[in-house]
């Protein structure tokens, strides 16, 4: 008896960029299943299926060994304490993690505030930056539409991913500090690679060839 292999793909923008690149490979996702609402999609290789998962949940499936391989942004990995392997930087889905404030407010303005409030879902990266800068701040947890927070008085600024900057511009925000960079990473379950390298490594190679 051999357990089926599951590969976790992110839903959303990164997933939309990845999935077409797999067309014509042994790991191409079944087109009919993709159009349905199912989240477990057969691939062109029997016994290998794809899971479509929210990025923040994806590392947990891989760390637990439920999925043998996965693709997720390094920003998500850096926020979680997960025991997994990171096989490659795929260099796609590149983003900047930035401190963004309403236009006209500088970094010095923010640093001078007696009580700084930052809205973000990137707590670890923000705390590390605050420590480097010798600052303290109140972190306001928000998981989406974070650009609204400074406009509506919920926070002074935000820490969020920026790809093109169009969303920031639309909300009158500008980048005031660069905290880090993010790109998609090919990750693997420790057990999958260390206990079944002959089965999992070739699948990882297919993903690498298709996605880099």
């Amino acid at each position: 008896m051999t357990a089926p292999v599951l590969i976790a793909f992110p839903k959303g923008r990164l997933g939309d960029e990845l999935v077409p690149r797999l067309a014509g490979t042994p790991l191409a996702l079944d087109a009919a299943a993709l159009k349905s609402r199912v989240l477990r999609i057969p691939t062109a290789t029997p016994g290998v299926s794809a899971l479509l998962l929210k990025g923040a949940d994806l590392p947990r499936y891989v760390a637990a060994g439920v999925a043998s391989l996965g693709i997720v942004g390094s920003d998500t990995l850096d926020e979680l304490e997960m025991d997994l392997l990171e096989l490659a930087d795929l260099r796609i889905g590149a983003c900047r993690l930035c401190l963004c404030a309403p236009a006209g407010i500088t970094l010095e303005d923010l640093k001078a505030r007696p009580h700084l409030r930052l809205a973000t879902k990137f707590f670890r990266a923000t705390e590390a930056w605050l420590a480097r800068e010798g600052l303290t701040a109140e972190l306001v947890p928000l998981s989406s539409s974070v650009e609204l927070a400074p406009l509506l008085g919920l926070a002074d600024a935000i820490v969020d991913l920026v790809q093109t900057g169009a969303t920031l511009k639309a909300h009158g925000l500008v980048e005031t500090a660069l905290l880090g960079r993010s790109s998609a990473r090919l990750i693997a379950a420790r057990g999958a690679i260390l206990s079944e390298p002959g089965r999992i490594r070739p699948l990882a190679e297919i993903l690498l060839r298709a996605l880099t």
Partner: protein
Amino acid sequence: MPVRTPHFPDLLFGSAARLRRWEGALMALLAAHGYRELHPSLVLREPVPEGALRFFDGEDLVALRWDFTVALAGLLARRFPEPPDRVAYAGAVFRRPVQPWEAMERFEVGCERIQPEGEISAEADVELARLLMAVPEALGLRRAILHLGNAALVRRPLEAEQLPPDLAKAVVAALSRRAAHRVREALGDHPAAPRLTAHAEALLADLDGPDTLKALDASPYADLLAGERAHMDRALHALLPILPERLDLRVDLADVAGLDFYTGPTLRLWAPGAQQELAAGGRYDRLFPELGRPWQAAGFCVRLSRLLDLAETRPDLFEQP
């Protein structure tokens, strides 16, 4: 009654019988090789780390035994002027899980090989590897993989470069993820970055069998690590000819698990398809000197709780008794 509880496993009939059988088989195996059982108390009164299960006994803060090796080391250092050379143990440890799917109460069987400082340790390391090679048969595991590593392959270059502790920690975390690109990211423009990145790439080279050691030729620390390499080479030559049919032997140069504890050769036992290692151990020569005893030691622990879980989810990996 709380509805959200930690994972304290109750063992039903089949698992309870399997645990009893495995404990018996492994303790008999260890006894046959001269390992005598010690049983440190389940309740510890010495300072305990985060992660132990702690509570107040009157005014005293106590903890449940969270690690057999540390508990045994305390007992041995307190009670024995000379070290017993071979010690075995069996029982439960209690530790707060790092990951939510891990149990808090864990059943283990293991052994420690202790020597006075200065005694040649290479044979003791091979003795432990041979013993671990016999464990799959004792458990009825159809196939297994033994990984040989060496903590010094990472520890010594980091010490030689005198990296600040936080940076060294970041490098080890990157290696734990087997991500050479993360090592490069972590080191940035540190002067040692080119050397340590090249070393990480050498450790992560995808080779197999005895040739794996040749990957160290590409490391800038090849000379520094010549002794470790020779030690691993000798171990491979001693073990490969006696490798049981059900066992594969692999060299894992990038094994950094427990790097703050292990100082030399490491051992990991896996089963094909298992998501967690089933046994782990290695040389830890700094523990007894920290307790005031000039002794060196190595050992391994068989994680019976993980084996019990594996027997439930993958019964095909085990022979039927």
